[in-house]
Structure formats: structure tokens, C-alpha cells
């Protein structure tokens, strides 16, 4: 490696400074990133909290502090219903991505011994991400619709005689769509954690006569927990802030806080939107904090 240093034209100065001065340099390197985050991430969120206390009249909003938007939000069935729907869908999606994703991760991470094959399988899972998220959501319409692919296939093989109509433009279609889009975020981290399990531990358990379920319960599942938590954080954050999937697949029947933020359209009623935003932020913060108590994200890198 000396090559790179000595081949320069300039003679090397005699005084060899050890490492450069540290505190200054660290601060200098961090400043742009930290400043960017404070200005464009922390400030907007604080602004949202602040605006949620402003006075909203029908057409305009004034910076007079009041609790009325909060009271309206929590005494309105529409808003509370939307909040409840969000929590319900989030929990269902969380469970379904885990159930759908875990077996696949188990296969890729633990049972495929060939490194190339397991990488290829993971890449196969990730490839759809290079198609726009919105188009992937939209792709469920011709799948689930009344004249969609699933109904057609089921009718062909004679399982049903009438097309199933609840498949599209219902809560079910939103859940199916979100599960498909987000389950990869479960598979990735879990497969990664499973791949790190020392095979000899499992062999030892086998030699001692443990059956598969016992090994799964006492070794595989606990060791994969960090992956589950990281996956759950990803899925939670995305599912809680979601509104596009429901816009595409629920036929606007489903009301999520995300939709409350969006639907007012051109001139939203900012104060209500801000309240919904703050509520969502608190919910999300609580969920992520609870999950981070289980796993230290920094150690898993």
C-alpha cells in the first residue's frame, strides 16, 4: 500500500502528524448531515405539533393557540374510526407478513446450504422493488377484480360458480396488497439472522435427540427474533403511514388517518390534518420504541 503514498511528485513533509485533530474534524463531518436533519426533519415535525394547536375556521387557519382541533378529533366518530381502522389493519398486516414471510425466510436462511442459491432467492424476492410501488399496488386490480385472474381460475377449476366480489375494493384487498408489498421486509432481516445461526448448534441438538419443533422453538425462533423485530419495525412504519394502497384497492371505502391527511385535497384543513399527523407520530414512536427495547439496532449492523 505504500505505493499509493510514495508515488506522488511532492516530497513528503518531515513532520508526521499522527491522526488529525479529532473533535473538530468529527464536528465538521457531522455538521451538514445533522443540520439537514434538524432543518428538514425535526423542524417540520415540530411545526406539525405547533399547527395542531392553531385555530381552524372553515376557510382559514390562525396562529391562536387552542385545543379545539384536538377535541374535535377525539369526539368525531369519523376520525376515531379511521384511527381504529389503521390500528386494526396495521396489526393484521404485521401478523400476516410475519406468517407469510417466516417460512420463506426459514427456507432461504437455514435450509438452503448453497450460498449462491440463497442469494439468488433473496435477489428474486427483491427484484419486484424495482417496479414502482404504485404500479405494484395497481397490479392487484386485474388479479382480484370480479373478472380478475383469481376469480377466473377458481371458476375454471370449478371451485366456485359465481365470482367472489369481496376480493376487490374491500378491506381484504387492502390487506392482501399490503401483505404482498411489505412481506419482503420481513423475509430479508429474518433470513439474514437465520443465516448467522451456527449449524453446529442445531446439529448438537439433533444429536441429543431433539425433534424439529423442539429445535425450532428453543433455538431457531429465539435467535431469529432480532430479524423479526427489525422486520416488524419496517412493516409497522410503512403500514401506519400508508394511504396509497387503500386509495388503489379499497375503492375509497376505507378511512385511514393517512387518508384524512390526503383527502381534503387542494386546501386541506391543516389543523385537523396536523392533529391526525401528531397522533400517528405518537403511535409510531411508541411502537418503534417498544420494539427497540427488544433489539438494539446499532449492534445488529
Amino acid at each position, binding site marked *: 500500500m505504500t505505493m499509493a503514498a510514495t508515488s506522488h511528485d511532492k516530497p513528503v513533509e518531515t513532520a508526521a502528524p499522527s491522526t488529525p485533530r479529532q473533535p473538530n474534524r468529527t464536528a465538521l463531518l457531522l455538521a451538514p448531515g445533522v443540520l439537514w436533519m434538524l432543518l428538514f426533519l425535526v423542524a417540520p415535525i415540530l411545526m406539525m405539533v405547533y399547527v395542531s394547536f392553531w385555530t381552524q375556521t372553515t376557510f382559514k387557519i390562525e396562529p391562536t393557540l387552542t385545543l379545539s382541533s384536538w377535541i374535535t378529533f377525539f369526539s368525531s366518530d369519523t376520525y376515531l374510526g379511521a384511527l381504529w381502522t389503521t390500528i386494526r389493519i396495521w396489526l393484521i398486516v404485521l401478523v400476516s407478513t410475519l406468517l407469510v414471510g417466516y417460512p420463506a425466510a426459514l427456507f432461504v436462511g437455514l435450509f438452503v446450504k448453497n450460498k449462491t442459491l440463497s442469494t439468488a432467492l433473496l435477489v428474486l424476492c427483491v427484484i419486484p422493488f424495482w417496479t414502482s410501488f404504485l404500479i405494484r399496488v395497481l397490479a392487484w386490480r386485474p388479479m382480484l377484480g370480479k373478472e380478475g385472474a383469481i376469480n377466473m381460475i377458481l371458476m375454471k377449476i370449478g371451485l366456485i360458480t359465481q365470482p367472489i366480489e369481496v376480493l376487490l375494493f374491500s378491506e381484504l384487498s387492502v390487506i392482501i396488497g399490503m401483505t404482498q408489498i411489505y412481506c419482503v421486509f420481513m423475509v430479508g432481516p429474518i433470513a439474514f439472522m437465520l443465516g448467522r445461526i451456527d449449524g453446529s448448534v442445531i446439529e448438537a441438538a439433533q444429536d441429543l435427540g431433539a425433534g424439529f419443533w423442539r429445535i425450532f422453538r428453543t433455538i431457531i425462533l429465539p435467535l431469529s427474533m432480532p430479524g423479526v423485530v427489525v422486520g416488524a419495525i419496517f412493516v409497522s412504519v410503512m403500514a401506519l403511514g400508508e394511504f396509497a394502497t387503500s386509495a388503489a384497492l379499497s375503492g375509497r371505502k376505507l378511512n385511514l388517518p*393517512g387518508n384524512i391527511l390526503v383527502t381534503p385535497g387542494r386546501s386541506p384543513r391543516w389543523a385537523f390534518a396536523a392533529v391526525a399527523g401528531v397522533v400517528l407520530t405518537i403511535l409510531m414512536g411508541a411502537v418503534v420504541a417498544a420494539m427497540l427495547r427488544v433489539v438494539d439496532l446499532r449492534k445488529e449492523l
Partner: protein
Amino acid sequence: MNASGIKLGLGFYTALFIVFLYGPLVVLAILSFQTGPEGGPQFPIIEWSTYWYKHLFGLTPPSRIAPLPIEQALVRSLALAVMTMIVSTVLGVTAAQAFRRKFRGSGVVFYLIVLGMMVPGVLVGLGMALVANTLGIDRHWWGTAFVLHVVYTFPFAFLVMLAIFNRFDPSVEEAAWSLGVTPARTFRKITFPLIFPGVLSAMLFAFTLSYDEFSRTLFASGRDLTLPLAIYGTFSVEVHPNVFAFGVLTTLFSFALLGTYAVLMGLSVRRAKRVAIQEEA
């Protein structure tokens, strides 16, 4: 043994899982070849044709179906993705470089940065719209939306670089410093070539995330549409197979991008190997 049965079962399940992931995309691709303009976005295929692809490029006679407003949107999205990619990669590399030393408050800074990818787009988008409203700033894709894109992609670049630096041998740099090479030059000549594969990955992440970013843009971009916003606009009206054709084309474009990345990555790995061989000689 029991395990081989389980392995077979799980293998079969994984195959089904992949069908689940790809099924809708395959159906979408098939339906994009529906005949037009009377063919709808559903089965059966009345007649195979490339009508909707021509429709995208305005090569068909005008019909009641308006062409997608993608031309300008595509240019904007690409420009935005490139800007975001450059800024967030630079920020990511510098911040990760700082994290190679222990410093007080590193935990706070770490979570401040990671927060950017944790907070849902709707929330920062809304917050930014409120800030812009209050300060009387106009919202534009190259302004308010751009800074939010960086807020989102910078943490990814940062985490990628952090992982790269964790596996980085600092003795090479120390050797350069002890020979009196300035830190800036050491970074340019030694550190950067060694971390280049990581930088490429960070750039790829930032580009694709920004290119596809929707919820942040929705609130913060003002009047001019980016590509995801143009697609979102079609949700509320009747969907025609031209959106599907467009989906196929964007997927192909992404593969081209991925291919470029793979080639660049291969080249840089090969170069690193060559240097290593020269050193040993």
C-alpha cells in the same frame, strides 16, 4: 428423516411465495398487450397488440383516453433522483466517516439520522407543507420535495457506509498519515477507492428510493407532477392498460439501471483485486 420432509415442504412453500410476489406483475404484463382502445384492463385478452405501448408515446390516433402525462414527469423524477442521490451519498459518507471515532452524543446523532427513514412520508410531507405555508415559500419538486427526499435516503446511505466502515482496515490510512499525507488526500487516494463499492450501493439505494418516492412528494412538490404522482393521478379515474404498459417499461428501465450497477460493481471489484495482486508481487 423428519427434516428432509420439512425442507421439501418449505421449498414448495417458498415457490408459492415467489408466485405470490410475481403473480400480479405477470398478470399486469400480460394485460398490457390488450388490444386498444376498446380493450379494458381485464381478462380475457380480446386480441394481442402493442396498442397501449404506442399510446404511451402518442403514436396512436387520438381517442377518448387521454395519454398519460409522463413525459415531463419522467424528466423531473430522473433529475430529482440524481440530485437526491448525489447529496445523500455525500452526506452519508461524511457522517459515517465521523462515526468511525467514538464521540459524545453519538447515540443521539445516530437516532436523529435513522429517524429520517423511520418517520412516514405523509408526516414529514405534511410538516414540510405547513412550514412552507407559514413561511410563505412556494412548494416545488426541486425545493421542498428534494430536501425531504434527502431526509429519507440519507439514512440509507449512512447505514450502508457505516456497515462498510465497520469492515474497513484503518491501518492503511494510518500508514498514509504517518507518511505525512494530508487527510483530504488520504481520503481521495486511499479511503475512497476502498469504499467505492459501498458508495455505489448507497447511490443505488438513494436513486431508486427517490425515483419511487411518493408520499413525501405528494405534499411537498406543489403543482408540477413527478412520475409517482402522475401514476397516482390515474388511481382515481378509470384505469386503462396504458398504465400497465408503462409499468412494464419502468420495470425494464429499472433492470437496465440494476445492470449498470452490476457492471460498475464488477469492474470496481476486479480493479481492487488487481491492486491487491500488485501489492503482493
